[in-house]
């Protein structure tokens, strides 16, 4: 029976949302092939208990490799464990999240197995027994439909596209023997420096509030942060103009040389809408633009726009959202 692997990314013993998205995409492929989903989580202590929930999202088999050596991510260690696993089980496809970890790991796994890899897929399906994907290229200016010919077909799925869907699977939980991975890797994570603030990452948040040069001064980003806080579960994003000016960190940059985001809702505030910016956010479900220039290109892609001075509009918007969210 076909077997679809999903990498259930864990960090600090917790399965991340993007890991559930990978399981959801794998479930879709498994249903197309009449196969099973096998979710795999690697990490330190606590990962096993967390991994049980993969069953809720459609995992038939759950394998957990828990060990001190794998508590922090290692490209070499993780790739070696997963490639061995994929080979031994003869999986037909391997789905990774297109996260920092997933996009580092998946190409290594594919190269180790000598098979093809497609990144940032926005749709997956099965045709004639083969895995067919849709993925944006040229910064979203074109969309490619591609067939992955290798076995397993290795791919990563873009964040926020495959919303975790409850679809109970058998969820047989089994340990994965990772004792052979003792460490001694050539690359070791020494430290993780958390970015200031507790807001979600711009590439993963369901709502992004992005600001541009129209904010005039870095201090005025307080308006953007306040709106994000009022919305809850929203990340702050930025245009390259303000990142280049040093107002905001590059991690917040949206666009061709920043992050590609597909949130449910994207606010572009004081952002003109240059092609390189649009490249990073045009697949958002809803776009709201606030700009004083009625001819700003951002209005061509925005679902809803308000023309006017952001310094008057944004505080009012924040207030209104606070009011309705109580």
């Amino acid at each position: 029976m076909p077997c679809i692997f999903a990498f259930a990314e864990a960090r600090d013993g917790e399965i991340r949302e993007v890991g559930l998205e990978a399981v959801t995409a794998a479930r879709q492929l498994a249903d197309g092939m009449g196969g099973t989903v096998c979710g795999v989580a690697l990490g330190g202590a606590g990962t096993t208990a967390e991994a049980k929930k993969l069953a809720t999202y459609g995992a038939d088999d759950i394998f957990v490799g828990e060990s001190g050596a794998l508590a922090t991510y290692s490209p070499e260690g993780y790739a070696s464990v997963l490639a061995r696993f994929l080979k031994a089980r003869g999986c037909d496809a391997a789905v990774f999240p297109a996260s920092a970890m997933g996009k580092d790991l998946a190409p290594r796994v594919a190269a180790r197995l000598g098979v093809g890899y497609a990144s940032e897929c926005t749709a997956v399906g099965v045709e004639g027994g083969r895995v067919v994907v849709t993925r944006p290229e040229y910064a979203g200016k074109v969309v490619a439909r591609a067939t992955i010919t290798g076995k397993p077909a290795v791919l990563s799925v873009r964040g926020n596209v495959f919303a975790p869907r409850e679809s109970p699977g058998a969820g047989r939980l089994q340990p994965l023997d990772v004792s052979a991975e003792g460490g001694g890797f050539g690359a070791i994570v020494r430290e993780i420096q958390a970015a200031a603030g507790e807001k979600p990452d711009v590439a993963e948040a369901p709502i992004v509030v992005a600001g541009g040069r129209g904010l005039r001064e870095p201090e005025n980003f307080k308006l953007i942060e306040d709106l994000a806080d009022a919305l809850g579960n929203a990340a702050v994003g930025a245009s390259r103009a303000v990142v280049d000016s040093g107002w905001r960190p590059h991690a917040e940059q949206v666009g061709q040389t920043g992050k590609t985001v597909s949130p449910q809702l994207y606010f572009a505030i004081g952002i003109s809408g240059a092609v390189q910016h649009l490249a990073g956010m045009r697949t958002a479900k809803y776009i709201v633009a606030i700009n004083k220039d009625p001819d700003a290109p951002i209005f061509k892609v925005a679902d809803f726009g308000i023309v006017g001075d952001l310094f008057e509009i944004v505080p009012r918007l924040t207030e209104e959202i606070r009011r309705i969210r109580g």
Partner: protein
Amino acid sequence: MKSIVCIKRVPDTETRIRIAGDGRSIDPAGVKYVLNPYDEFAVEAAVRQKEAAGSGEVTVVSMGGPEAAETLRSALAMGADAAVLLRGDPAAQGLAVAAALAAELRGRDFDLALFGMKAVDDDLQAVGAMVAELLELPSATVVSDFEVSGGTVVAHREIEGGTEVVELKTPCVLTLTKGAYEPRYASLKGIMAAKKKPLEEKTAELGDSGVTTDELSYPPERQPGRIVGRGPDAVPELVRLLREEAKVI
């Protein structure tokens, strides 16, 4: 210190992209090509390492058609010392390219193999990590900044919600993102010097990419927006639309 930087010729990000008659490739007519912006960061990083150390060598390698020689020259003008053109299908992607680059790197002595985080044409974000795996080298991807001392590299890589500090033994692979290495403009002197630097040409040993592009299409046009109104008075209507129509807040 010896560095090798793998660079790709890609359409300028401003260029309008049109699908060719075959429906599965890009029409090159009228397209302006540049050095991939992320690869510029990698070239800049390698040249700065060499300058800081006061010695060393930077070799740039590109797989592509004869036109890629121009891209290699632009990297030589930024301060790289030698170039290698691996002649092969410029449309090849992923594992096919990684195999060709790995074959070239295998025979060479280097401390750092630098890549861009991704090529802005296929947007694959894979070749650097694939080469690392094929050569069994340690790697760090999406690096914004790194330091080298002795045989150790300390790299900062962007991850969700923070920065990962990774320590690597050389030789290793790094893929660069925007960060500490704002690329320089080539000086006239650099451009003149580049013409005299060695550029070796070979045939690329391309592998199989394992992925075939069946069809390219344009993304669905976003329906041009609706202007809800002007000024702060439009806010309540916007909020209503977001709640009741879009149901996103």
